[in-house]
């Protein structure tokens, strides 16, 4: 099951500048593993060693926050990776 994934600009160095990629997964964890295979190093920028979403990252499935990495993905779900920005 392929999903559209929106990449925040601070992580686009991993996707050759692409703002959007697609990745497969039945759960958020599966999808992040697929992203890691396609874009090595990217998962660690989002998920720490304790398998927690890093505090400067939020992951939304469609318009609602994904509670855990076990969150299930339904066909057509879009995954949005959001990174805190500091510029003013």
């Amino acid at each position, binding site marked *: 099951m392929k999903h559209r994934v929106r990449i*925040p*600009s*601070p992580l686009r*160095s991993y996707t050759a500048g692409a*703002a959007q990629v697609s990745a497969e997964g039945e759960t958020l964890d599966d999808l992040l593993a697929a992203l890691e295979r396609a874009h090595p*190093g990217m998962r*660690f*920028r989002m998920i720490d*060693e304790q398998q927690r979403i*890093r*505090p*400067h990252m*939020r992951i*939304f499935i469609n*318009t*609602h*926050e994904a509670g855990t990495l076990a969150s299930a993905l339904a066909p057509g779900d879009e995954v*949005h990776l*959001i*990174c*805190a*920005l*500091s*510029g*003013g």
Partner: protein
Amino acid sequence: MLSAAERARYDRHLLLPEFGAAGQERLKSARVLIVGAGGLGSPAGLYLAAAGIGTLGLIDHDRVELSNLQRQVLFASDEIGAPKAGTARRRLLALNPEISVHAHEFKLRAANAAELLANYDLVVDGSDRLATRYLVNDACVLLGKPLVSAAIHRFEGQAISYAPERAPCYRCLFPEVSEQVVPNCAEAGVLGVLPGVMGSLQALEAIKILAGIGTPLFGRLLTFDALAMSWQEFHFTRREDCAVCGAHASIRTLRDSAGAELDNSSSAIEALQPRELQARQQRAAIDGAAPTLVDVRQPHEFALSHLPAARNIPLPDLERRLPEIPLHFPVVFICRSGARSLAAAKLAEHAGMGAIAHLEGGMLAWAAELAPAMRIAPPD
């Protein structure tokens, strides 16, 4: 009561049935503090002044620089070097002499935030540092003030609004963020119009909250992608474990985070000892924020020995080749003894880069402390 001059000035507001004289009176009696007279604070300040916010405050301790003028539309070319807050005050009063504007030309800190915010009803955060964002958020939560917060990066913008009892706060969205992992505009660049869009949006949100109209961005993160020209909205809720607004909040008084001590207006070049640099590289393997090592020695010196991850950009070429240095992570300049690396760091700082360090004592110190077998080439 609105005067005849005010009725004429705000005529287009008064024509709006949802807003009318009652809405305008609310704006007139409102006191709004803008944190940061920068890319976001400029349009926010101009629109809030034009809209007739009775009392506006601007806090910014910086001076106008040439590189600000690409986006900070409060300022003019002949104001380079002038204090931002005072200059902005004159500009806003010229736009609307009916209002009061206060210039606060100092740095917002835990020690002065509560006293300053007590004089205002709502805060617009347009600061450019995460440490300030957290301080402003915490102050608003603890003092019960509504907050309109926005941030920008390259071609992307984000905005949320907070109000006590009505919305989750910034920490509910991003509990704690290290300055090192989030690049700012000075490091990563920003399209000049982008803060114009997001700062105007902040003014609009502030007016809506003060006038009591519409649906503010409470519990909603609004994102803007300028390249795709698309807006998206995400819902987030209060975290039970939020350190400042959660049920068992640990933040009861304001505090400066470590990053708040770094002052953009004076030199923030860090001098790293060899062991500090080594520790930072080891830590980078864990948190992913590897510093970029730039060795500014001549190619023949670099060829004999260098640190494994370092790239070679000789000092005479540095200014021309600055764009080659990735901006997302801290940069550490390295040379033989520490003199050229400091010059390189100053050059990079002058060019507007942030998070700059150099290896004190250079490769000679590194070899002496950590790699006795390493041979270091003489400069000539």
